[in-house]
């Protein structure tokens, strides 16, 4: 415990920095010094920019076909070349950023909401509910995630949105376990006991005391999970279990161009590079957040 400063020393009554603002300041100080994390932020912001302004940036639409210009190598007119329908690959990649980022963010938000809910129920109320929920997590985690998403997509039917849902479901236990363990820790804090002693109800305790103390690890895990969600969505697209033609989803673009790898390798090269780049970006941010928010989480 750092020596508490004497409050009387400053009678001005100016509201002091909250520990939250203080923590944010500290966090920013440490994050800013982390060059890889800044690089990751720039990459991700760039892709978000692409996604938002794809309509302005892209030289062509996602399905502007020109069979006479099919499988053209990169040139001034088509920076990344053209595919087997003569579509501009750069344009498709720019629009593809929309799809991948959407899957990444939405699926992770879904996993966080459901996982947090289940994790709180399991950790806070415990007993039979905890056993059931924890076993449920164990069982879901017993399946390799891509297999489980495939199975779920098989039920829902192959589409990008169903892939999104499947990925969200598969990642629920990741956040569920995380939140549960945070809840178990925070629940034992004396200020939670104090909150109960003043007659506070469970809902208020959870929202006022327990959740705010669980947010940091959720954000770290969430960022890293966006990266894997994007990878998984591309994998599903590649297997034909995700986005369907003519959507310019990067994994789907890869599987469609496979057969031209010999004659037109650029059709395979650029969509893959886009995936790697954006995933690297999220991983860098995630690592940086982890180091800045909680040095003990480093591993």
């Amino acid at each position, binding site marked *: 415990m750092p020596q508490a400063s004497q*409050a009387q020393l400053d009678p001005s009554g100016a509201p*002091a920095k909250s*520990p939250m603002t203080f923590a944010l300041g500290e966090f920013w100080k440490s994050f800013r010094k982390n060059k890889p994390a800044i690089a990751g932020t720039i990459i991700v912001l760039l892709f978000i920019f692409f996604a938002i302004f794809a309509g302005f940036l892209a030289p062509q639409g996602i399905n502007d076909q020109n069979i006479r210009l099919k499988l053209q190598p990169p040139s001034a007119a088509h920076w990344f070349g053209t595919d087997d329908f003569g579509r501009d690959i750069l344009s498709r990649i720019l629009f593809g950023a929309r799809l991948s980022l959407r899957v990444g963010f939405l699926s992770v938000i879904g996993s966080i909401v459901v996982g947090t809910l289940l994790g709180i129920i399991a950790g806070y109320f415990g007993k039979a509910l905890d056993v059931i929920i924890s076993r449920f997590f164990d069982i879901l985690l017993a399946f390799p995630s891509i297999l489980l998403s495939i199975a779920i997509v098989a039920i829902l039917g192959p589409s990008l949105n169903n892939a999104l849902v499947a990925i969200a479901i598969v990642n629920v236990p990741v956040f569920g376990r995380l939140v549960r363990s945070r809840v178990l820790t925070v629940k034992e804090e*004396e*200020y939670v006991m104090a909150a109960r002693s003043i*007659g*506070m*109800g469970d809902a208020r305790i959870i929202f006022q005391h327990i959740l705010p103390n669980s947010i940091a690890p959720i954000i770290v895990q969430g960022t890293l999970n966006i990266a894997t969600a994007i990878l998984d969505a591309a994998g599903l697209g590649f297997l034909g279990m995700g986005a369907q033609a003519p959507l310019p989803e990067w994994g789907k673009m890869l599987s469609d161009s496979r057969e031209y790898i010999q004659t037109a390798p650029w059709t395979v090269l650029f969509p893959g590079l886009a995936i790697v780049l954006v995933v690297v970006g999220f991983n860098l941010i995630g690592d940086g957040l982890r180091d800045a928010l909680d040095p003990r989480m480093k591993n």
Partner: protein
Amino acid sequence: MNEALLQVENLKKYYPIKGGKFGKVSETVRAVDGVSFSVREGETLGIVGESGCGKSTTGRMIMRLIEPTEGKIIFQNRNIMELSKREMRKARKDIQMIFQDPFASLNPRHTVGHIIEEPMIVHRMGDKKERQKRVEELLELVGLNAYHARRYPHQFSGGQRQRIGIARALAVRPKVIIADEPVSALDVSVQSQVLNLLKDLQKQFHLTYIFIAHDLSVVRHISDRVGVMYLGKIVELSECEALYNHPQHPYTKALLSAVPVPDPDVKTDRIILQGDVPSPAHPPAGCAFHDRCPAAMDICSKEMPMLKTLEDGRKISCHLY
């Protein structure tokens, strides 16, 4: 000062310890094992005992922050044990608690104002403006300043934080305050300030205290009656002065002799307790104190002494009486 405001009967808390083969319950920790006492309106009941003897558990059970395994808690002629979860939350308005650790018991993310206001929000007292006014009054009442409301706990010293905890407990105008070692974590110089504050507040608001401490000297100045606990049981309960001047139970005597005497000329027979407090999972048979008791007799290891009432009103559990 005679009506019992709060009465506790045969309160018990057993913790099953899982372990051993196949996670069977292998032993039971008897954290509190049949505690009974009553508290009269406006008085202070001190509860003393070595660390781990079940004081905090007792205090928390009275508020049902920990569910008792067994026992009755009668507050204002109502058995609290029969209240629903909802009713219990309402009932907590009348009984409040001050915690031992002034660092851990205040949420570091909330402002002092919010911390003190929270009980009033929970119990729907007044509107925002009234509550804030009361927060400022409370802060001044406990010796802080109104502007401290906008600060965060980490900007205060231990003693100041304990004052914040006291203000929080007072916010809903409770009848009873359970103070669980409120000064143990504080410097000796600060301890007496906080104790005096508690005394003043008691007079001003006609409060009833249950004051828990592991140290007999702290309790003496504030208590009307004192109960001494050992391994989950009350071994002696008596008027404060009688207990300090004429301790009867061998354990009380031993505890008292360990208290440093301010005047070195006064000779006391120091009784040094041998050995450690036994684990509440394996309390010795018979009198739980017999393996450390200088006056132990044969019967002590065989039969558990009952809590008897002596003619001066003192309650004691020892085969000597």
